[in-house]
């Protein structure tokens, strides 16, 4: 659709212009396909993801923004609402609660917020969800921190 392309181009320009505005998010459009984007987001502070940099892959549908983009984690992450194998994200605004006023940038912000505030009652990663639901905050945090170290941080040395 023409409209989706025009809108993505607007977002692209906005991202270029505001590159410094949000240091936690780095959104990059695929060189040859404006419907494919990747983002690097910083793990929020005071969470087990702090210090990690997580890569997201966006696949934007032709009907965008009337339909939400498909987003998944490329970087492995231990989080109740992220599928451990596929990186699929369970987030209402990416499904029923989508509104065309969201942008790729604001979706990234929503995902950062989700990282800081997991919803263990709608888990895609049951192990992680069960730890939180059974009150084992420490167990969840150490698992999440371990995977952040393993997958989302540059190797030392």
């Amino acid at each position: 659709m023409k409209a989706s392309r025009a809108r993505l181009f607007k977002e692209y320009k906005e991202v270029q212009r505001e590159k410094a505005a949000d240091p936690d998010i780095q959104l990059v459009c695929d060189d040859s396909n404006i419907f494919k984007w990747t983002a690097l987001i910083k793990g929020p502070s005071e969470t087990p993801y702090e210090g990690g940099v997580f890569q997201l892959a966006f696949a934007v549908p032709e009907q965008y923004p009337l339909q939400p983009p498909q987003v998944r984690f490329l970087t492995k992450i231990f989080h109740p609402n992220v599928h451990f194998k596929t990186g699929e994200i369970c987030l209402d605004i990416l499904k029923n609660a989508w509104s065309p006023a969201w942008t790729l940038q604001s979706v990234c912000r929503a995902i950062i917020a989700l990282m800081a505030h997991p919803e263990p009652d709608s888990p895609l990663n049951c192990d992680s969800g069960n730890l939180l639901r059974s009150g084992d905050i420490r167990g969840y945090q150490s698992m999440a921190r371990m995977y952040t170290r393993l997958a989302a941080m540059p190797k030392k040395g």
Partner: protein
Amino acid sequence: MNQEEEVDEPGSCPSQQDSNPCPICLGPLVQESYLDTCFHKFCYNCILHWSRVVASKRSRPSASVKCPLCKTENFSIISGFDGTCFQRHYINQDLGDRFTFSKQHKYRLQCYYNEPGILNDIFNVLRFWKTRKYLQSNMWLQSWLRRELQALMQEEDVDIVVHHIHGVIDSFLRRIEQSRLLKKPTEATQDDFRIAVSDAAKPFLLARTDRFVNELELFLASGLNIEAYDAVYMQRLGWNAPGGSISSKPAEESSQHLGIVPYLYIFDVDSDKDE
């Protein structure tokens, strides 16, 4: 990834022009419109499209739409405000005549997922051409075309396409009447027909064109009206008329609400390939 390829010159001032863009297309407001409760601003077409997408996802028609920005329920779109008057578009206003994918459309679309040729022993297409049955004009063709194209294109307003294809068929059949003296073999005439209709339909039906031409010939060869044709078709497929209403209430075709209407843009996908 090359992020530097599209750097805005600092001197250009898109931010001024876009200081208050439409939240949906992010472009300048076209036909500035307001939602009636929260008064958020959108392009008329943007908010109208969105309200339709929302409606198509609901299982039950609703008279309101949530504002994409603040989630307030709104009941109408106000546009063209010039200081004294404005137009108001109620959210449920077009529910009555909004295109709902009726059972008949579904049945027609399903036919395309069946192997072709299951009716070949009932309707003899070759005989249709040999015996020149096309000399009798088919008064149901236009309605048949409309339903078929609506089903295939998932689009309510197919008038122009119906008109176009009907015109091509009509003029072709009229021309072969005149050129019958040339003694072309029947098969060649049939091929010409298929090519002419394919050419006319291809831009709209894409990969489904060939099958569409098949179905069209079959319908013409049947010489039946739509109800009878449907009955034969469905009997052969081994289906009962869905809900038992197909043959008895064709008039309800467009008024049957079937809950969730698929919101598909099958054919938009290609519309901008050549940009």
